[in-house]
């Protein structure tokens, strides 16, 4: 029988088993007596073995078989799943993942599994420190509560199919084009005053709206889709740092657009790394500070209307705004005068400024990944907002506020010189008219006092390197008050033209290097409209 038609299915199902497998091991380290989880772990190894045997993948069979054997000893209560055994199982899972990758690529490359097989076969739990094994059998109480929370695994069903992200992207693009054309058509029909076209146009609009909603729904995935690897990551980092960390994820079931999920995974990884590496103190420091021995990191996902907030909080040492400011002055990122006027909120944002963190301050672990400036960029590229809260000695919170859906946003359209610029409505707090005479200057910065608060004013023309206005305009200057990472900034513009739903397209190189612009859209009458990146604009 030709098995090749089943290879893709094998690969995707094997991956799902392996990712659940690693997730369960990490969970079992926290609750070693969770017998339901041990059973499930066993079942994953067992299913994988059966599938691989059917396909004739001998290496996979052998490793899965040895893992299953050792797990059956845990299952029978012979020994408990402690870190040395968990490490071995995780290494086994990693090797199996690499084997599955090779199977998928149909490559002739070979994975050397001899060492792992030997370690698995020879594993002796009693040779390593396994305290009170027999004295402390799996706890019944834990089992009950764990099995209640341990719902049935989601199984494949004929009610769902797999679709390539690419196909979904095409669908979104086509839908976006359709909506653009519909706006143009509506304009022409209005201009021609063609009454007989109104009713079909009305229906077309309604259908396109329904189509757009369905296409977006098809792109939604639960946060769990990317969350599976986080517990393992935190565990491994903590082990390497010799720190004890309790890690919790809440809100895994909340759905986001898969494009956003794919883009946000790396920034989350970086924040988690920072939290383990820099945020949490060592056990000794914690005890000295009167805190519990182990640190806690929580990753919370919650829905807030058409936005999702991803919050990563630690109970570590927190950040000192004073130290951040003096470091930024030292690096000439800000002037001492600017530092004086900075709120703590603004000071925390300094860690996102490119060039703030240097090799001297970054350890091996976080240094290799993206910096906070890249995290910041990534969040903004998704039309999101990153805010940072911290309290010295108490810990830090990183809050990423993201739209649930990509691509179509509500925007305020403004005119600046020859350009039309769209400001995502989620960053605009309100629009105001500023009196030119109220705008003051201090150490090269413009500001106004609005409702007793000192608010920086930035001219969109200057930010975009356009010539300043001739000064003959009226005494009032329209401005958008925007929330830039927790700080309100007023952007003065030539004219506010209106509000519109726009389909944002990312710019590709070389246009992606355009300063202050995060994307573009084509309007109903075919003009190009740029989408503002307010963070870049604010940096000036």
């Amino acid at each position, binding site marked *: *029988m030709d*098995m090749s*038609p*089943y290879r893709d*299915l*094998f690969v995707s*199902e094997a991956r799902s088993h392996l990712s659940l497998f690693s997730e369960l091991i990490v969970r079992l380290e926290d609750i070693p007596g969770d017998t339901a989880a041990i059973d*499930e772990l066993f*079942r994953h190894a*067992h*299913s994988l*073995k*059966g*599938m691989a*045997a*059917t396909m004739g993948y001998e290496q996979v069979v052998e490793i899965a078989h040895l893992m299953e054997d050792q797990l059956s000893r845990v299952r029978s209560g012979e020994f408990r799943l402690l870190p040395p055994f968990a490490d071995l199982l995780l290494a086994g899972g990693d090797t199996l993942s690499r084997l599955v990758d090779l199977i998928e690529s149909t490559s002739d490359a070979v994975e050397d599994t001899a060492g792992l097989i030997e370690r698995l076969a020879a594993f002796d739990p009693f040779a390593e420190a396994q305290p009170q094994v027999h004295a402390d059998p799996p706890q019944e109480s834990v089992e009950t509560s764990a099995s209640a929370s341990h719902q*049935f*695994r989601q*199984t*494949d*069903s*004929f009610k769902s199919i797999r679709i390539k992200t690419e196909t979904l992207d095409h669908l979104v693009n086509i839908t976006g084009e359709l909506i653009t054309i519909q706006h143009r058509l509506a304009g022409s029909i209005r201009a021609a005053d063609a009454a007989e076209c109104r009713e079909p146009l009305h229906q077309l609009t309604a259908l396109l709206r329904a189509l757009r909603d369905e296409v977006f729904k098809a792109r939604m995935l639960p946060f769990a889709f990317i969350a599976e690897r986080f517990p393992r990551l935190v565990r491994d980092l903590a082990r390497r740092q010799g720190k004890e960390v309790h890690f919790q994820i809440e809100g895994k079931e909340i759905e986001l657009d898969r494009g956003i999920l794919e883009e946000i995974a790396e920034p989350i990884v970086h924040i988690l790394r920072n939290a383990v590496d820099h945020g949490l103190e060592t056990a000794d420091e914690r005890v000295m500070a009167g805190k519990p021995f182990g640190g806690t990191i929580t990753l919370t996902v919650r829905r807030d209307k058409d936005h999702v907030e991803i919050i990563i909080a630690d109970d570590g040492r927190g950040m000192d705004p004073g130290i951040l400011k003096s470091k930024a002055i030292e690096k000439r990122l800000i002037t001492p005068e600017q530092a004086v006027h900075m709120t703590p909120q603004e000071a925390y944002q300094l860690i996102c400024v490119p060039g703030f963190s240097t090799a001297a301050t970054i350890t091996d672990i976080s240094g290799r990944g993206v910096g906070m400036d890249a995290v910041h960029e990534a969040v903004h590229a998704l039309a999101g907002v990153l805010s940072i809260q911290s309290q010295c000695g108490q810990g830090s919170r990183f809050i990423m506020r993201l739209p649930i859906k990509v691509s179509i946003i509500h925007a305020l359209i403004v005119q600046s010189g020859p350009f039309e610029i769209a400001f995502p409505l989620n960053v605009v707090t309100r629009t105001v008219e500023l009196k030119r005479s109220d705008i003051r200057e201090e150490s090269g910065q413009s500001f106004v006092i609005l409702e007793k608060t000192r608010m920086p004013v930035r001219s969109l023309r200057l930010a975009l390197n356009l010539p300043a206005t001739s000064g003959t305009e009226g005494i009032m200057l329209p401005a958008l008050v925007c929330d830039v990472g927790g700080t309100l900034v007023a952007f003065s513009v030539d004219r506010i033209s209106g509000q519109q739903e726009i389909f944002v397209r990312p710019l590709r190189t070389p246009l992606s290097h355009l300063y202050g612009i995060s994307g573009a859209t084509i309007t109903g009458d075919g003009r190009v409209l740029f989408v503002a990146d307010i963070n870049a604009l604010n940096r000036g």
Partner: protein
Amino acid sequence: MSRTVMIVDDSLFMRKILRGILAEKGFIVSAEAASGIEAMRNLHTSHPDIILLDIILPDSNGLDLLESMISACPNSKIVVCSAIGQPLVIRKALDLGAKAFIQKPFTPEKVTEVLEGLEE
């Protein structure tokens, strides 16, 4: 002759392979189920002649499920699928009323041999 089959296995991969083998030999796969709950629900609507039952399922003890299936649908012949190394489970399943068993990993020939053996 009995020809309709329900496949109960939590692995989509396994169900597809079994479906492929059975289709080639002229069996009609009238239903598939990925869990015990789904299996019981489908049993009432499809009344298959043969049930291929994987004994390890995420939501139920395979032996309990076997008993429920026999009492719900006594005319269906149940064939238990299980991996090597579980003689006790197989013995128990046969005692409870399973008609035969197939060990995983199986060959297409083995599957057809067992299913055709049922019809005699």
